[in-house]
């Protein structure tokens, strides 16, 4: 339970960064933290104490392997989720650079004032 609490704390930190920070790059960092937290949550859900990676090696007994490995499905989901997070980050950085080019600032408040 402590572990889950820490994951939710990480989630809260990311959310705070995304919503409350003025600087766009800080917002992007908040989003990266948020993604990290969600991915960690998924992996934690699939974790089983004392069990190993879901990779079958030559010579392993399949039945014993199935008993000694963590849940593989969340890992497949996290792989997809990491990729999505990366895609969103890249497009966000492109937007931030373009906005910096247009307004000369990355501060969302100052941007609002410049627009008038």
């Amino acid at each position, binding site marked *: 339970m402590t572990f889950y609490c820490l994951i939710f704390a990480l989630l809260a930190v990311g959310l705070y960064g995304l919503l409350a920070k003025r600087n766009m790059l800080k917002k992007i960092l908040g989003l990266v933290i948020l993604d990290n937290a969600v991915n960690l949550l998924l992996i934690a859900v699939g974790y089983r104490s004392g069990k190993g*990676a879901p*990779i079958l*090696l*030559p010579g392993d007994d399949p039945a014993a392997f199935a008993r000694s490995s963590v849940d593989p499905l969340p890992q497949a989901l996290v*792989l997809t989720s990491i*990729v999505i997070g990366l895609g969103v980050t*890249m497009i966000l*950085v*492109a937007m931030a*650079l*373009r906005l910096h*080019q247009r307004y000369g600032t990355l501060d969302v408040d100052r941007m609002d004032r410049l627009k008038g």
Partner: protein
Amino acid sequence: MPRERDGLSAIVRVVTQWLFVPILVYGLGVGFFGHLTPGGGFAGGVVIACGFVLATIAFGGRTGPAPVFHRWAASLEAVGAMTYLGMAALGWSAGHFMQAWTPRGEDFTLASAPFLVVLNLAILLKVGAGLFAGFMVLVLFDRATGATAREGGDA
């Protein structure tokens, strides 16, 4: 003057020359054997993109292998994506979309799952080329958007 034309110091260039091919080989290996060991097409593709990024940083955006790759990156990305889609669509010949239609070899060898190997390589190509294209456009943002006085930057 833009930094990227100059690249970095001679030492970095030499190191990059030595590292570039091993990085690509490592990336390909991660992709090729993704169905047996940790890793896969995505991780391998990112490694390869990193190799070209390193070359770009070391040699600048105008010399070395990176500009050639950059020119073809978008097309290669499309080819990778179409390969994946094509493999999936050929599954219809076996009955269903996405069905593994290739024959299978002995377990724990490269040939144990040719379908997965081809898919991994398609993703590797797609992700490697795509991320590199994305990276270049973000790093050379001013040149890409034509904001500098110099025209004709090839985004």
